[in-house]
């Protein structure tokens, strides 16, 4: 693995490997929905989706078909903090593919007709999210936790925000937010390192940075009072529950301990305290899990499940009991099992070039050490019970936000204060 900075500050990680005649590319820009201006919620997402549709020279159908003819596809998608771009190419088409990618980064088309189609699809997506209660409850939860912070601006935006967008907003957002000095690229697979490096210097290293420095986000504040958010949807069968609060950031010193503690609590799809209690013992849910959604300046810790409305109260109480219990620490056996799982399963996470490329861009963005892959296993092995207990306490400490969507009423409120 080799990591360098291009002249304009773009981070590039190259990992040549000749196992398969395939090349995967991953690309991150710090241009996600946290940068949506007030009143223009949804702009980052519409900008990314419009951008992937062509260049000044090549309109949508021709541009897309050049990718399709080589068996590939370019996707750019906005998340909360990041825009992620990715593509996989057969080795013999890799230069064509990289060249098309460079074209669109240097000179996106941003046609008004593309903007209108993308905006219509974004509105459609908002409607589709209303039809999916998991999405409804998830939005309630994230907005409930991040209330007032930029992390409350979710990628799909709002109807009012989408309505307010003008075609010119896209170019302005792109010029200000797609900064090469805040961009991270990785190429993994069967390619010639020197050739690709020269290509990247020439075609991407020359992209200009906007004047000034990139703005930094303030940390996500704590939630000090219980918040209960209910969306009543009598026509549905299940109620979706999201219970949690602010979590740990991607750079947190307790990050690995939190991963291990959460594995014991509900991070594992194989076996976990929440799964044993809520799924296996009580049969209340098809699936229940807990997760820390990490961001650069905070995180969201959440327990999620779906159940019949009459079971909501019991389920919430059961989750709370497990949160209280994990804050007391884990058993020696649980610690051993978590360490064994996390170290033993580590190679399973890197079975494709695409997965490796995404790992490299993500780790560069979060500033993880370059020897992350080599040190991960010894760092997990070195975790002790006290580390997990401390991390678990911190994870669940702010779990004061309960979001429920489904055939439940306002009378659910007292449950949230338990």
């Amino acid at each position, binding site marked *: 693995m080799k990591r360098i900075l291009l002249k304009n500050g773009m981070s590039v990680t190259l990992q040549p490997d000749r196992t398969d005649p395939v090349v995967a590319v991953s690309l991150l820009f710090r241009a996600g929905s946290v940068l949506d201006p007030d009143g223009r919620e949804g702009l980052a997402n519409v900008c990314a989706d419009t951008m992937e549709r062509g260049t000044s020279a090549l309109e949508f159908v021709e541009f897309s078909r050049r990718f*399709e003819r080589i068996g590939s596809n370019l996707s750019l998608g906005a998340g909360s903090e990041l825009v992620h771009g990715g593509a996989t190419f057969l080795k013999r088409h890799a230069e064509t593919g990289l060249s098309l990618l460079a074209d669109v980064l240097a000179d996106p088309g941003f046609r008004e007709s593309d903007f209108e189609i993308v905006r219509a699809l974004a509105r*459609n997506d908002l409607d589709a999210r209303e039809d999916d209660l998991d999405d409804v409850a998830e939005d309630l939860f994230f907005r409930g936790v991040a209330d007032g912070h930029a992390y409350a601006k979710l990628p799909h935006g709002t109807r009012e925000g989408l309505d307010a967008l003008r075609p010119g907003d896209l170019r302005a957002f792109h010029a200000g937010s797609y900064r090469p000095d805040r961009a991270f690229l990785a190429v993994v697979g069967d390619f010639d390192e020197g050739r690709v490096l020269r290509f990247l210097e020439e075609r991407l290293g020359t992209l200009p940075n906007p004047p000034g420095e990139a703005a930094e986000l303030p940390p996500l504040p704590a939630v000090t009072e219980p918040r209960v958010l209910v969306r009543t949807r009598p026509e549905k069968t299940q109620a979706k529950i999201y219970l949690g609060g602010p979590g740990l950031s991607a750079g947190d010193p307790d990050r690995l301990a939190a991963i291990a503690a959460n594995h014991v609590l509900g991070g594992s799809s194989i076996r976990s305290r929440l799964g044993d209690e809520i799924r296996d013992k009580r049969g209340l849910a098809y699936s229940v899990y807990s997760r820390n959604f990490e961001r650069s300046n905070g995180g969201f810790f959440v327990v999620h499940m779906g159940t019949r409305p009459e079971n909501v109260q019991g389920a919430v109480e059961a989750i709370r009991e497990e949160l209280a219990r994990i804050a007391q620490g884990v058993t020696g056996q649980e610690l051993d099992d978590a360490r064994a799982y996390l170290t033993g399963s580590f190679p399973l996470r890197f079975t494709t070039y695409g997965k490796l490329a995404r790992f490299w861009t993500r780790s560069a963005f979060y500033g993880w050490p370059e020897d992350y892959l080599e040190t991960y296993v010894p760092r997990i092995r070195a975790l002790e019970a006290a580390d997990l207990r401390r991390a678990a306490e911190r994870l669940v400490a702010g779990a004061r936000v309960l979001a429920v969507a489904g055939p439940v009423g306002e009378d659910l409120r007292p449950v949230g204060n338990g």
Partner: protein
Amino acid sequence: MSAVERRTLDNGLTVVAERRGLGPVVFAGVVYRVGSRDERPGLTGISHLLEHMMFKGTRKYAKGEVAALVERNGGELNAFTSEDVTMYYEVFAADRWELALEIESERMVNLAVDEAELESERQVILEERAMYLDIPAIELAEELTAAAVRESPYRWPIIGWEADIAAITRADVLEHYGRYYAPGNAALVVVGDVEPGEVFAAAERRFGSIPGGPEIERRVPREPEWTRTTRIELVRQTQLPQLQILFRAPEIGTRDSEALFLVANVLSGTKTSRLDLALVETNKAGDLQVQFHPKADPSTMLVAVEGQPGVPLEEVEGILWEELARLARDGVTEEELDRALNQVEAHHLFALQSPSNRGFLLGWHEAHGDVAYADTIVGRLRELNAVDVQAAAGRWLDRGRCGVARLLPGAGGNGA
């Protein structure tokens, strides 16, 4: 370039092994030739329920012990049930992959079905079913399939009808297990950083002494030709209308199933596929999919469109029929066919990288009688020409013999 090796043990278990992959990782799975296709009315969903019970303990492993064992070894384990097959699999680091065989050989013969566990798992499955039915497109597809398919067991959902799930007994589960879970009705698939020779030796050690199992007599009703168009309509409290069209489709391995697979890829799947240009790019629809996975018996191809508020479904349906008729009338261009083939071929090669995806693919085709087809299909598709694709569209996309379902936003409920 395929390195797939295959042997059959004396008890009838076929073993498929392939060395490939980037890292020290091994996928190992057992696929049984049983699914919702092998069920009958009154016991629908039993294959899926049995799959759930396979995680609830055996003679050697108490409940939870398999999960603990896999976890302690840093593995993954899971399973899925489909119409034709049920597959159980583990993924481990290459230095401990044989543990998967220890678990699967035990589960093949020594399942314990505890009454209390069965009741608890029944509730879990009813929650799973409720979860699916809260998604409008899934509910609509289930209703449409049940209305349009006449004889084939593919007419009921894999998860089963609610009343059947509620009524299945412990004796039913054990009977289903006894009939279908045996080496003669199964295949072991191992893919990853391990020599096929080692795989065959380990398979003999772990599975070789298991009796082959009973002869299985299958009398699966074959779906007759459709003779009419079935229309259904659902009214639900949703934001978006949905339109779905279902066609009868040919079984796996046939020339027509291959041509129809290309038809599906010309119609949808990329940003500039025909239906995407006709409906999504004109703001008449949002999400759009054409689903066709050929199965052991004639099954179905589904065209599913998520509409836009304010665009009548009649208009969407009109455009759909126009596009389907155009394909049958004018055929495809060479460039269009070439683009579709390049997509299929590239995706095939990309999927080789993941041991799990490769293992699922090999298991699926081994269970359908021809593991080599997992790779030869790409070449067979390349042999098809524009005339074949046009002819398949004309034969199978028949407006007078299909199912059409509309979901309209309104005051209706799902009975809750």
